[in-house]
């Protein structure tokens, strides 16, 4: 049925395919099955209830008017923030200077920190009584703030944490992209006496665009499902005001112990990511071909 070469190829991909099947496909199928059933974690009756859970999720005002807007806002601002900071650092690191390797290594440290650990650290940094932020503010004569008690300051801290964690990832990839750019156009621009800003605007940025777009697509999809830092920093509070999609699904499945409804929420989120991913990949394709 298969030639020797085909059998060899199948053998090579078998372990990866098996892992994918066991740890990706099977859980998704089980989750999808649970989403159509009365499946409480403490008493899984597993009776078929059709689309009831889906209707409950997509008609939930909290999901529509708090969770989804929060999730998209977080996705846009977090990706944009980390991209800008990562690009700035990549540009700085792309110039030779003394201690460049050391700085580069130090800048990568956040990548090695577990998000939960980072979130705990940030929560204490912004603690209104013991946090260093308020100590500094009070030292310069400003009033310390209860950062996690108001929606937008809490949301800002979540963003800051995420940007801090992901900036090195952007830096690393964009730096690799910068170092692979041909030197000739930059040398020509230097001979013409072009300003640094114009070099960046009309040479660096357009030539780096394919790398930027790939980074943005991957990170945007990942940002959509952010859970750990939000759960640790605010738990979605105060009063659900910083709740993102993944927390919404988690609370339903594991706090309310309603695995059926939590799975339905996860599937709805998965479909949203799927649509978003398709749109973004088309965008990448168009940019790459441009």
């Amino acid at each position: 049925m298969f030639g020797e070469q085909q059998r060899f190829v199948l053998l090579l991909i078998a372990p990866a395919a098996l892992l994918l099947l066991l740890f990706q496909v099977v859980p998704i199928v089980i989750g999808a099955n649970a989403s159509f059933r009365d499946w409480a974690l403490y008493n899984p009756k597993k009776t078929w209830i059709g689309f009831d859970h889906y209707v409950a999720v997509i008609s939930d005002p909290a999901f529509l008017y708090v969770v989804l807007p929060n999730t998209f806002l977080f996705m846009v601002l977090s990706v944009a923030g980390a991209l800008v900071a990562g690009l700035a650092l990549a540009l700085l690191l792309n110039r030779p200077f003394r201690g460049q390797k050391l700085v580069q290594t130090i800048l990568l440290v956040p990548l090695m920190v577990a998000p939960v650990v980072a979130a705990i650290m940030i929560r204490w940094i912004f603690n209104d009584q013991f946090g260093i932020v308020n100590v500094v503010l009070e030292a310069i004569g400003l009033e310390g703030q209860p950062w996690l008690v108001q929606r937008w300051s809490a949301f800002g801290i979540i963003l800051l944490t995420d940007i801090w964690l992901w900036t090195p990832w952007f830096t690393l990839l964009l730096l690799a992209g910068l170092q692979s750019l041909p030197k000739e156009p930059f040398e020509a621009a230097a001979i013409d006496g072009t300003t640094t800003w114009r070099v960046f605007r009309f040479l660096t940025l357009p030539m780096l665009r394919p790398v930027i777009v790939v980074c943005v697509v991957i990170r945007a999809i990942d940002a959509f499902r952010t859970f750990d830092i939000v759960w640790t920093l605010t738990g979605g509070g105060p009063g659900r005001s910083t709740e993102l999609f993944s927390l919404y699904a988690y609370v339903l499945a594991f706090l309310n112990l309603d695995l059926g409804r939590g799975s339905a929420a996860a599937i709805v989120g998965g479909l949203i990511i799927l649509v978003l991913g398709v749109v973004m990949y088309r965008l990448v394709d168009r940019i790459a071909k441009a």
Partner: protein
Amino acid sequence: MQGLARWLMAAAAALMAATSGATAQVKELRIGYQPSPIQDASIAMFEAWGAKNGVKIVKVPNSYGVYVEKMTASLTSNSDQYDVIWHNDDWGQTWAHLLEPTDDVEANKYGSKWSMAPLVFANAQGQNTVVPMGQTFSVFFYRSDLVKPEEVPKTLEELVTMSKKLQADGKAKFGYVGGMSMNHSWFSWFWSMWGNNCDVLMPFYERDNKKLAEGGWKSSMTDPCMQKTVEYWWDAINTHKIAPRGMPAYDRNEANAIFMAGDAAFTVADTLWWGQFNDPNKSKIAGKVAAARFPLGPDRKKPFGWDDIWGWAIPKSIPEERKKLAKQMLNAMMLDEEGQTKMFKATGAPPPNTTFWPKIAEQDAFMKLLKEAVLDSPDKVRGAYYFPQWPAVHKAFNDTVTRAVTGRREDIARVLAEGAPLVSKAAQ
């Protein structure tokens, strides 16, 4: 022939080794728990028993943040991952059908009848499913170096007055601090609510699910008592400034840290933190802490005590011989007077065996107070509700009151009215 005999002997020895290995495997009990002073102290008793009886105690710590979901999944999947697990009144009914009945643990008869009531821990057949670990409830802690016993606030209003006085005199940065965020409602919201004839659901203080269902799982969010409770905390934080502005986001650890740093004169915390509050290595206020009854709101005159237990349970799905061994261990723990006295001294949590209470109270003023104010009090409240949807109800409650207390004062009634149907719906 001699060679064959040697082989047979070797085979017999190997078989014996294998058999004794299997026996050794049975002589092991795996404990699923959450590291905390009281659980650590209780497990120390297991270990002492294990050492005497040749049973290896394997401790498997789990994070509090994911404990219920993780353990529920373990219980419903019929795994034999744990032989004994930490159990709590909050999820007494959620797990009742998944746990081994413990009526045959003889020493259970010495446990607190109130705390082990069937409505909390009994399964559908009326069998008990818990062995108590210790009494876990909160009391009103105050700084004994700043406040004399006769000055301790007896009302919520006095709490404000006394706090402001201490702040004005420069003796304390804050009057009160306590956890407020979700899953820490007990340390500000709940006690102040119960102390003003109020509760999460109606009728107030009712825990019988049939009666709650008859009442339509009605939330008390729109009752004037709840508005008064939220307004009290709004004023305490924003108007009187006796509590930190960040308090609505505090968990118990953050609140305890402020109290132990000496920055607040009063707090409400579980008695099991008594040991930590008085540990000079961890607390700046060691030796300067005392406890009292909860201050009451304007609508309640009668003092009350809030009394619950933490316990241990045995998953139904584990093999019979391990259930038997686990019950032997739990029975021995219930009878371990020395271990339980040590546990009380280390933590401040009254031990599970009620017959030890008078003796400890004779020697310890804190236990005497707990006995008078809570354990022997005829007016008690239960700290949770006992139906599986309780976590969802609690979350809906906490989300609503948090929104109300962090918003504008004039919006409190509106926010509570918006949250009322969400609380009721979560219960159904």
